[in-house]
């Protein structure tokens, strides 16, 4: 599975309170969450992101609250992949469960800049910076994790596997 899009770049320790502020947690509707995604650190994000775009960040992305609303908001925005130096533990688990693709790759996270066109292949873990003509190797997920992401999340994956 391969994705391509332009990069939205953020720093270290992006927390789930800025990904989706608690004042919007009175609903878990993806469309509602999409409208406010990243609002507190990047007010223009919801208006400028296009389907397929890629989010790139530093260390400990998604730290803080366990709200699954955070990866749901990013996914609903059209983001096809989040690349970071590292992910906070609960966020990492939530991304896989809701089917938001993520790759840990310090090299890519450092080199990619805002607006770069980036593509990534989940099966090989190769990330390509089309703008800079550079390639970075991340560790690909095992097949079953890629399977969950391809299905659209753990629920869909479970349903597919059990024939519901």
């Amino acid at each position, binding site marked *: 599975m391969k994705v391509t899009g332009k990069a939205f770049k953020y720093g270290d320790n992006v927390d789930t309170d800025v990904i989706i*502020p608690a004042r919007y947690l009175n609903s878990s509707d993806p469309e509602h969450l999409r409208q406010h995604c990243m609002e507190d650190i990047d007010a223009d994000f919801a208006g400028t992101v296009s389907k397929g775009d890629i989010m790139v960040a530093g260390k400990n992305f998604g730290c803080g609250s366990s709200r699954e609303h955070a990866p749901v908001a990013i996914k609903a925005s059209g983001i096809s992949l989040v690349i970071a130096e590292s992910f906070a533990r*609960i966020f990492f688990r939530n991304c896989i*469960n809701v089917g938001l693709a993520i790759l840990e790759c310090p090299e890519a996270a450092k080199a990619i800049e805002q607006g770069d066109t980036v593509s990534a292949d989940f099966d090989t873990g190769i990330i390509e910076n089309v703008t800079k003509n550079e390639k970075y190797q991340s560790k690909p997920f095992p097949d079953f994790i890629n399977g969950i992401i391809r299905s659209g999340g753990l629920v869909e994956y479970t349903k597919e596997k059990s024939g*519901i």
Partner: protein
Amino acid sequence: MGMTITQKILADHAGLSEVKAGDLIEAKLDYVLGNDVTTPPAIKIFKQMGSDKVFDKDRVCLIQDHFTPNKDIKSAELCKTMRCFAREQEVSHFYELGRREMGIEHVILPDNGIVFPGDMVIGADSHTCTYGALCAFSTGVGSTDLACAMARGVTWFRVPEAIKVILKGSFNKYVTGKDLILHLIGMIGVDGALYKSIEFEGEGLKSISMAGRLTICNMAIECGAKNAVFPFDEYTLRYIAKTNPKRFAASDYKIYTADEDAEYAQTIEIDLSEIPLTVALPSIPSNTRKAEDCRDLKIDQVVIGSCTNGRLEDIGAAAEIFKGLKVNENVRCIIIPGSQQIYRYALEAGWLRIFDDAGCVISTPTCGPCLGGHMGVLAKGERCVSTTNRNFVGRMGDTGSEVILSGVPVAVASAVLGRVGTPDEL
């Protein structure tokens, strides 16, 4: 090879004699927890999966505490969804607002004697790591994991590596578990324990009350930890004997100890007598300073409460320092007892009278302002000293507002002084 306390609890619940860091295991859960923000999406997923019954109605805890009493129509709908589900599933640990068992999730699960040593708990709330104070394993997950765990009573884990924190000496006056955990986060950073467990040991443990241990484990997530755990000792014993005498008398719990040759990725030594009254300045919990070095920071609000510092000992300590004093004319001070039991105790002990005389707002138990929900949201340019756990951008309100984290003594002193201050100044 030896195992840590966390590894032993995980192994036992997975039916394995041994696990090592990095292993992926499926483990049985003793309790599964959700709140009014995370449970409604989980209920939707639970139904989508075609599940019709929770795995055990006595082992699912559904606690409405974040936006309660409901702040708006949407949050009322969230609680209604949860209430209907709890009734339909006959969930025993669902309580209505105002009832004696009710309160903030991480205050009542230990205080009501639900969680015991050796238990394995997941909760769709990042501060679920609190119960490690009782020598249990507990960690936060998201709503999908909650849904699957409600259905099956099991979940998968990656066995974590551990950091050992050896505590020496004893706390100075007014210094508490909150100062220790802020200090530790300041030392190792907000990702210093990422994916790992933190295990405390050493003679310094004697200086840390059960309330302090719950505060410390509560904030383990703020340095990225999967869980934190204190060894079982006489403090644990006394606490559980009181919270659930029946389960205690039946010896229905298991004491886990770390092996001598358990492996630790890192060992940190801390002398408790060297820990100052500590604050974390905006906008990250690792931005720690000595409270006494921040005296020029004027404030608009103080919040005393939350799953971090809303326990009986915290509210009692606040009353003790507030006695005979007044909240500064430029400050609103909001006191939130963590549960109805604590509220009642505070009423009978005369603490609420002290707060009222001082000019404080006294709230019903709720997470409320901690996450900028309600009961004390900040306007642009306002600054709050808070005993809560996060000071991220916009956490308590406008993105132009600020939260400074502290323990109870600094919060009370700051409320009186109208700026960051310490109790010795009063």
